[in-house]
C-alpha cells in the first residue's frame, strides 16, 4: 500500500515534535526562572513600546502573496504536465506555452503597473 510510506512520515512528524519539545521541557527543569516586570516587557532596544503592534499593513504584501498563489497554482499545473510530457509530445508543449503566455501577461501587467515595486 502506498499509504504505508505515510506511516513513516507520521512517525517522523511525531518524533520531530518530540525533538522540538524535549529540550524545551529540559530547559524548564534546569534553566533559571525568575520572572520580573521589566523582563516580560516587549524588547525594543531599551525604550518602552508605544502604540498598538498589530496594526494594518500595506497592500503591497498582499499583492506579493496573491502573485505567489497564482504561480503556486501554475506549478500545480506544470508538475503533472512535466511528468506526462514524455508520452504526449509537441501538442502538449503548445498547450503549455499558451498557458504560460497567459500567465505571463498577468506578470507583465503587474510589472508594468509597478505593482511589483517595493515602496
Amino acid at each position: 500500500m502506498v499509504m504505508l510510506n505515510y506511516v513513516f512520515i507520521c512517525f517522523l512528524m511525531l518524533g520531530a515534535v518530540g525533538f522540538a519539545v524535549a529540550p524545551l521541557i529540559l530547559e524548564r527543569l534546569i534553566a533559571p526562572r525568575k520572572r520580573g516586570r521589566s523582563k516580560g516587557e516587549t524588547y525594543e532596544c531599551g525604550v518602552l513600546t508605544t502604540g498598538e503592534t498589530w496594526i494594518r499593513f500595506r497592500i503591497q504584501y498582499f499583492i506579493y502573496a496573491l502573485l505567489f498563489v497564482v504561480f503556486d497554482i501554475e506549478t500545480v499545473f506544470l508538475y503533472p504536465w512535466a511528468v506526462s510530457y514524455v508520452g504526449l509530445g509537441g501538442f502538449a508543449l503548445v498547450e503549455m506555452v499558451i498557458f504560460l503566455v497567459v500567465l505571463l501577461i498577468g506578470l507583465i501587467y503587474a510589472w508594468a503597473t509597478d505593482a511589483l515595486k517595493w515602496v
Partner: protein
Amino acid sequence: MTDWACATLLFAQEIAPREIPWLAWFLWLLIGFFGIFPGVVAYMVWAERKVAARFQDRIGPNRVGPLGLLQPIADALKLITKEDIVPDAADPIVHLLAPVIILVSSFLVLAVIPFGVGLAPVNLPSGLLYLIAVSSFSALGVFLAGWSSRNKYALLGGMRAVAQLVSYEVPQVLSTIPVILFTGSLSLVSMVDRQYEFGWFVFSPPGFLAFVVMTIASIAEVNRTPFDLPEAESEIIAGYHTEYSGMRFGLFFLAEYLSVFAVSCLGTVLFLGGGLLPFPLNRLAEWMGTGDWPAIVVNIGMVSVFSIKVLGYVFLMFWVRVTLPRMRVDRMMNFAWKYLVPLSIGNIVIAAVWFEMVLRDPIKRMAQVEITGDEYIPPGIGVGLKGWIVTGALVIALFLTVLRVNRGSHASKIKEITESPIPLPSEAPALFARAR
C-alpha cells in the same frame, strides 16, 4: 542492462513496500533523523564559524576541545541552561507553536532524499511535490513567530520574511520543472536513476540555468546572506525571532541549519546526480564487467560521494555569505520577480526543446530495449552537441533578454526621475500638508 546496473539503480527501492520495514524505519528515525542529521547540523555551524574566520583572517572557535570541536556541544548546553523568556504581551500558545512548526517542516523535508541505493527513508511517488509542500510550512511558522511576539520589529521581520520566502519559492519550484521533464516522474529516486543513464542534469544548458536559479533561490529560502533581510540586525533587531530566547531560539537556529542541509541535499539530488560519479565514471564498474558488488560497498561509495557534493554545496553557501553584503529590500524582491521568475519560466520551454532534441529518442529506445531485450546503443555524440549548441544559444538569448528588459526599464525610470523638477526644501512643508 547488466545485473550490476540493476543493483545500482535505485529503483531497487519499491515505491510501495510489500511489508512494513519497521526495522529500517526505526533505524532511520533514531540514527538518521534524531542522531546524525542534528549532529551534521551542529558541526555545520562549527564549520561555518571556522570557514568564516579563515575568510576574515581569524582563527575561529579554538577553545573548547581540539580545534574547537566541542564548541557545538557547549553551545547547546548554553542554550538549554538559559532562561526561556516569553514577553507578557505575546500570544503564548502561538509563540510556542511557531518554532515547532518550523523545525518539523525542516525535518519532514529530509524524508524523501535518496542518499544511496535503497537509502531514501521513503520513496514517495510524488516525492518532489511532497518536499515542496512540507517546506512551504516554514513560511507559516515564520509569520506566526513574528506575529505572536507582539513586537513591532518581530512583526515587521516576519512580514518581510514571508514576502521573501513566498517570492523566492516561485523560482525555486519553477526551476525544478526541467528536472521533472527530463525524468518523467516526481519521485526523487527515479531522478537519480535518470541521471545514472544520461549524466548529471547540470551538464545541459537548461539544467545549468535551472541549477543556478535553484541555488540562488535556495539561499534566499533559508534566509542567508545576501538575502538575510528577515533578520537584518542593523534594521529590525533580529527579525521574527527577536522575542525568542534560550532553547526556543535554539530551535530556530537548528531549523535554519537543517534547511541549509536539506536544500543542499535537494540541489545535489536534482542536478548533481545524488551519489553518482560524473557520467562516464558512473558506468566504469559496469564496463569493466566486475559483476555484482555487494550493496553495502556501493552504498558506502555513494554516500561518500553524496556527502562530498553536499559539503561543496554548503561551502558555496558559506562562501557567498562571507563575500556578499546584504541586499536592499526592493532590489531583493525585484530580483525574484523580474529576473529569476522570467528566467525560470523561459527555461521550462528551453528544457522541452532539449528533451525533444537529445533525450526523447534514447528514452524511447531504452523502453524498447527493455521489451525486446536487444543491445542498447547510446546515441552518438553529435546529437548531444547539436542540442548543446541550440539550447545553449537559447539560454544565452533568454538571459540577455531578461537583462535587457530590466536594464531598459531601470534606465527609463532614472531618466524620468532625474528630469523631473526637484522640489526645493522650502516647498517641503507645503507638499507634506497637501499629502495629508
